[in-house]
């Protein structure tokens, strides 16, 4: 993997991270009580989450200027790592051995793909 590809892979990883942040915002808002359907959607968190979502699509386009298409879904699998980290720290979800093993497999897969692919 050369420097150009590394930079673009980093952009896609950043986009995937931002996408996970937007999921957290949506989940936080979904846990709240709302007086109306309009209020469910027209609030700062949901609007910000969808804004971030659009930003991630633009980041993915930028990233694909320097990485092959096949690398995209592999890098996007890193979302499981971010979502788990947010789940544990923000929503106090429990982590089990299977989940840790799964995340290690995903990390190993991304590393193997990047180094040997």
């Amino acid at each position, binding site marked *: 993997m050369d420097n150009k590809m590394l930079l673009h892979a980093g952009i896609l990883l950043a986009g995937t991270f931002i996408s996970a942040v937007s999921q957290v915002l949506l989940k936080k808002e979904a846990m709240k009580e709302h007086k109306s359907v309009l209020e469910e959607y027209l609030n700062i968190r949901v609007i910000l989450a969808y804004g971030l979502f659009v930003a991630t*699509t633009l980041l993915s386009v930028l990233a*694909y200027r320097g990485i092959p298409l096949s690398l995209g879904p*592999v890098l996007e699998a890193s979302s499981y790592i971010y979502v788990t980290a947010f789940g544990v720290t923000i929503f106090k979800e429990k982590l089990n051995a299977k989940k840790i093993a799964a995340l290690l*497999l995903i990390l190993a897969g991304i590393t193997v793909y990047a180094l*040997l692919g």
Partner: protein
Amino acid sequence: MTTGSEKENKKGKTLLVYIFLHLVLMLYSLGGVFSKLAAGEAFLSLRFCLFYGGLILLLMVYAFVWQQVIKHLPLTTAFANKAVVVVWGIVWGFLIFREHITAGKVCGAALVICGVVLYAVSGDKEKASDGQ
């Protein structure tokens, strides 16, 4: 007690849901193709806007159909099947963008797929029945 034809009916319905699930996952994977096509165009040119618009449209259709599919399947099953997107990435890359398939790529992708499937089935039993 369920009769034979009721069982057949249920089997047929489940098969249909799986077909829909995999169609929508294939559709989702095409989002990457649109991203990559837009990446090859000048920012905000007509072709860029067409490909980027295609990406947004695909994601909207995906979000809508996904919501429907997970009503009829356990969430864990749906998420485990999502790993197939990695395979589609390799297939579209090879067919549309003439990317090479190497042993390293296949090994890396296989590890990621195993990880995603294991993650999906790692939840507790109550979660496994979500959406059923």
